[in-house]
């Protein structure tokens, strides 16, 4: 009798301990991920810009100066212009890139044509090359096409390279049952109609996932813009922020917050789609 009671009590303490440890780890994890973000937010509200005037992680004095200079002092660092440039490049590449990727993935999933296997293997092998191994060639080609120092050059590269990552999307389309296609085809719909009217409405999660990845890549890329954009007026935010030193730390933090917020909001709204899209792609890849 007593022994059984002790056993129950032991199991109970074990359970409590288990919960306690779990929460402890969770708090630590949350702190680790949250603290650097908070540090940047605090830093953006510091009155003096330089990192040397901070008391450790915290600014000595608080104020909105960094945000004011960010948008008004545009002689040296024209942040508003950079922001608009980035927005333009990212949105255009997102639209074109998403369309191309979805089309590629759909064809690879639904059609069985002669060069299909060869194309799949080629993309697999191409994906193993270091990504900017070809950047020198891209640079030389862009000079030949006269697209250096122009936003459309970047957009062209981003959207043209996007279909290479069609695998996740193909995995998603593989999970949509063929019976939908067949039923529609019996009703006399063409393949084009099947795709637009039946498949697309079903693939909202993967559309969102694709658009999001196609948007964030140019939004935060720095290699290509740094190489292809020479004029300071044409810079994207990534290249522009890289040119800020330790004495401009507050301005860097403020600029970072403005570039990070749209992405963060997007991610939180769409996190459900993201999980579904990634999981679907991973299992079937």
């Amino acid at each position: 009798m007593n022994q059984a009671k002790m056993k129950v009590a032991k199991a109970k303490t074990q359970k409590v301990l288990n919960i306690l440890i779990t929460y402890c780890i969770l708090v630590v994890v949350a702190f680790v991920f949250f603290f650097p973000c908070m540090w940047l937010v605090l830093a953006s509200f510091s009155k003096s810009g330089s990192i040397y005037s901070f008391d450790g992680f915290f600014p000595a004095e608080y104020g909105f100066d960094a945000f004011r200079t960010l948008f008004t002092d545009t002689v040296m660092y024209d942040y508003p212009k950079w922001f608009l440039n980035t927005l333009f490049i990212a949105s255009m590449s997102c639209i074109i890139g998403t369309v191309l990727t979805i089309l590629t993935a759909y064809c690879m999933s639904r059609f069985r044509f002669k060069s299909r296997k060869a194309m799949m293997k080629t993309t697999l092998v191409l994906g193993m090359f270091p990504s900017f191994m070809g950047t020198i060639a891209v640079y030389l080609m862009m000079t030949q096409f006269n697209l250096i120092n122009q936003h459309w050059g970047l957009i062209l590269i981003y959207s043209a390279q996007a279909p290479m990552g069609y695998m996740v999307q193909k995995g998603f389309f593989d999970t949509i049952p063929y019976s939908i296609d067949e039923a529609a085809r019996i009703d006399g719909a063409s393949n084009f109609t099947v795709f637009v009217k039946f498949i697309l409405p079903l693939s909202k999660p993967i559309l969102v996932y694709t658009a999001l990845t196609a948007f964030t890549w140019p939004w935060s890329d720095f290699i290509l813009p740094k190489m292809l954009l020479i004029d300071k007026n044409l810079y994207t935010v990534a290249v522009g922020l890289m040119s800020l030193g330790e004495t401009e730390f507050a301005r860097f933090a403020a600029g970072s917050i403005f570039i990070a917020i749209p992405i963060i909001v997007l991610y939180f709204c769409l996190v459900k789609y993201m999980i579904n899209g990634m999981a679907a792609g991973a299992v079937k890849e």
Partner: protein
Amino acid sequence: MKAIAKCKNFFKTLSEKLKALPKKLSARFAGAKEILSQGNGKVTASMAVMGLGQLLYRQWAKGAMFLFVQIAFVTYFILTGATDLFGFFTLGTREGNAWYGVEGDNSVVMLIMGILAIFMIVLYIAIYIANVKDAYRIQCAVDTLKEPAAFREEAGALLDKSFHKTALALPVIGVCVFSILPIVFMILIAFTNYGDTIVPPALVSWVGLENFRKILTLGQFAPTFFKIFGWNMLWAVMSTALNYLAGLGLALLLNKACVKGKAIWRAFPILAYAIPGFITLLGFKFMFSYGGPINYYIQQGGGEAVGFLGLDAKWSARFIGLGVNAWISIPSTMLLATGILSNVNTDLYEAARVDGASAWKQFIKITLPYVLFATTPVLITQFIGNFNNFGIFYFLRDGLNIDGYFLASDTDLLINWLYRMSIDNNYYSIGAAISLVIFIITSVISLAVYVLSPSYKQEETFR
């Protein structure tokens, strides 16, 4: 033992495929033989001049299109194509001299244009074959007293039966020009002496395997290469393992029944995931800089400021890189694992509990195999991504030259070295050779892992 058996199996299927190759090829040529022996005069006309056969069969629109392609290609070839193709082999013969006003050949541009010319020829041949096949198809239709398909019908098929051709045209062209062409260019550059002092207007020439010999034997490059390679492997293995296990652990932790408010706990890693990488990296660089907060507290405590990322900070910089990389990549692994865990069949756990399996046993026997199976492809991509992780050390420690290294620092990965060599210092051909080496390493490793993984064998069962 199992691994060896699997490897053997892989090579066995490979050799079987090779043996079947002649048969496959002859099957492919059977079609060509049939056209050659059975085709009538009009098909031969199409062989001589593209589109002629179609025109003779009164297929005006299609015939005109093929004819147009023929004319366009011939014009292109006469105007620039032939010289471009020739230039591909010579890489220029006339050296420019600004002093005498001689405009010389630009070898690099000639190389790119040469590759483009080869692409064009391949494309032309493909269209040419399609043209002959089309003519033969019309002949067959006419011979069997059927009406050959009208142009409007065939154009309509582009949205239906051959929708994939329409849809794939643009992506394929884009990938060819902006992914394949540059890679081909770089592969070819690895076999030339382009770079260092030999940049246009100087003439570049083909040198064969010279660059690889230089990397492996020359005192300038070889020690740096092997040192960086060793660290690169270590880095790739460590960071992949760390990110994978930590991400999986985090997902499992959040998946526990006793955790309340999962959405809130999950929000913190997602926050980290959403912040663009360059901001995180620059932020951490500021954090560990001489005037940064960490050093501030060290000085407050009476210590000396430490150069965490400075010149002689070998291992501290490496560990900071590892940590920062984990901070950036763990959330995505967590999201992925969360998605996969939600797909695990819960009946399995029920059954295991009834049989008295402990939580640990359940994890080892059910969760881990499933997750491992589902994520092997992702694991490979992550490994390659980490092997070629350019951003981390580019932002944390750019531009350092350390003793014993040629144009590199002790934290640099091969990809950083490649960048420094080719973009900043003009060693183009050596850089290209290094990237070929990187490619060979990564592809061999990932292929081996892929063949050994359970996902490989059962790929088609998931269809």
